[in-house]
């Protein structure tokens, strides 16, 4: 049998087209080595090829066995958990809306269902997309999204609307793309690190300049996730630099200094007005509970933590002594669940969300390709930090509010989160199909 016939028979057994190239290259290389060895022993080329192919064994048997391994996989748990969480979140929002209509401002259930279905479709769509394509065109997609955010900002402003939530959602999508950018700068030394930092500029502009008001939690979450990814890339010696841990330490010291730098800029732009505003907010935050203000955070901590029960409604609520008007219910669904159904229900809901994110992180970290690992770990880091912020806002420790999928109904947020969750699906789906990588400094990375 000739090499071409052998390869044809073997590859005919493999169903996944994407896996064929990787398998073919390896087997052909093996035949070439064997053939060269026979020729060195004095065999003629035609005979050497025939003998090398004979040594390979049965192509059909090998092809069938390889086909069993190289198949696209579906992470059913990562698909069903978000669906389950969406149903749980929607039900909670609907029921809470019946009890606290004033806070929730009337909920459009049909609209929320449409957003959820849209999210699931987007998640599946991204899940079926080979994530390495995203990696290949990451910079173009990044700049395209930045352009879209700029356009939306201009159009919305003309229309008198606020682009804040849409541009913030777009900025969340920069995170896995930033992972791809880091991957592209491997082995580029300090220049690679500096260029990677420059790629954060579109994110900073989108988060700081495009919205009407600087939304500090979203900016902080996205920057933290990017910083974690950059630190991991430096720590794993992707850039092949000396003193990598000193650079990592420098990055974090720099991140801590940025707010002080921004403080100066705020003072320069808006005089002392901005500073006074933020100082007043900070003062309210550290004196929560003492001022009896209208902020959810200030009221929540003493009432929620002291008067809530493990199972069942808050004691004050039960006794008919609940006098607070709680604003913006949609951003505090977890707190309302705690208030109305008890601490246990809120912990169970949080547990399912954490389960999903930890499972996503686990799948990503086990992935053999570093591009997939960085993208998935970046997404998991972003969503984990976002959830921690959401949780802290809901128990009143952080004086703010933030979107989180499943428990907040918002179209743009849902689509962005679905794209991010879809990346987990894609990483899992192609784990046995995406080939190995070119040599890298294995010892340095380990």
């Amino acid at each position: 049998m000739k090499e071409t016939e052998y390869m044809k028979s073997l590859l005919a057994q493999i169903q996944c087209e994407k896996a064929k190239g990787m398998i073919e290259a390896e087997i052909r290389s093996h035949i070439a080595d064997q053939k060269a060895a026979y020729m060195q022993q004095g065999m003629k080329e035609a005979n050497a090829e025939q003998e090398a192919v004979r040594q390979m064994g049965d192509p059909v048997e090998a092809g069938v066995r390889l086909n069993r391994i190289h198949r696209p996989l579906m992470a059913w748990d990562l698909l069903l958990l978000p669906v389950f969480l969406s149903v749980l979140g929607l039900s909670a929002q609907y029921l809470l809306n019946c009890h606290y209509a004033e806070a929730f401002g009337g909920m459009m259930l049909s609209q929320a269902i449409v957003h959820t279905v849209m999210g699931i479709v987007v998640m599946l769509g991204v899940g079926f997309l080979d994530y390495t394509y995203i990696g290949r065109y990451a910079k173009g997609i990044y700049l395209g999204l930045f352009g879209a955010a700029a356009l939306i900002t201009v159009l919305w402003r003309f229309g008198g609307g606020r682009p804040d939530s849409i541009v913030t959602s777009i900025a969340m999508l920069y995170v896995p793309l930033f992972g791809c950018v880091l991957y592209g700068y491997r082995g580029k030394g300090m220049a690679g690190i500096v260029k990677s930092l420059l790629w954060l500029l579109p994110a900073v502009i989108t988060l700081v300049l495009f919205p009407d008001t600087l939304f500090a939690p979203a900016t902080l979450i996205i920057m933290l996730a990017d910083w974690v990814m950059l630190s991991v890339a430096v720590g794993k010696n992707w850039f092949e630099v000396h003193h990598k841990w000193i650079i990592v330490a420098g990055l974090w010291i720099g991140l801590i200094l940025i707010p002080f730098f921004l403080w100066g800029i705020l003072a320069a732009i808006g005089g002392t007005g901005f500073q006074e505003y933020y100082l007043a907010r900070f003062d309210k935050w550290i004196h929560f509970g003492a001022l009896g203000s209208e902020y959810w955070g200030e009221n929540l901590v003493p009432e929620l933590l002291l008067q809530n029960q493990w199972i069942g409604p808050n004691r004050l609520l039960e006794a008919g002594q609940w006098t607070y008007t709680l604003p913006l219910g949609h951003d505090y669904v977890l707190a309302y669940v705690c208030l109305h159904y008890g601490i246990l229900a809120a912990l169970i809901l949080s547990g399912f969300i954490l389960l999903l994110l930890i499972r996503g992180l686990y799948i990503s970290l086990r992935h053999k390709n570093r591009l997939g690992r960085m993208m998935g770990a970046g997404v998991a880091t972003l969503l984990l930090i976002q959830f921690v912020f959401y949780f802290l806002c809901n128990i009143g420790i952080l004086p703010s509010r933030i979107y989180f999928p499943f428990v907040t109904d918002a179209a743009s947020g849902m689509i962005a989160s679905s794209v991010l969750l879809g990346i987990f699906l894609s990483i899992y789906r192609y784990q046995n199909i995406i080939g190995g990588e070119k040599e890298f400094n294995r010892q340095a990375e380990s």
Partner: protein
Amino acid sequence: MALDKSLVSGSTTMLLLKLLCEKDMYGYEMIDTLKARSQNVFELKAGTLYPLLHALEQGGVLTVYEKEVSGKLRKYYHITRKGRRIFKEKRAEWDAFSKAVATILNREDRMAGKRLAAGD
């Protein structure tokens, strides 16, 4: 000497892991090394080797990377920490098994020798 396939198949994974404990290798190199070290007793078919290597990689026992050597891009296999642990377990199983087989065979040989000496 041609060996019974079933005799070899159970120990193939252990032998491959042993080679990879020493250094990273590509497929052809593994077959060639096994053949040389066993003095042509182990002639593993590539059609058996690659599905096995790919399955071990899928199971997190091995990782792969590509490296260019003399202008040729080769796929190297690297044993993971999990792989080293599995190798140790397989090695211990094999040692216990081979010791038991040797004990039985030696006993049979000794008894046959005694019978011969006694003139049975």
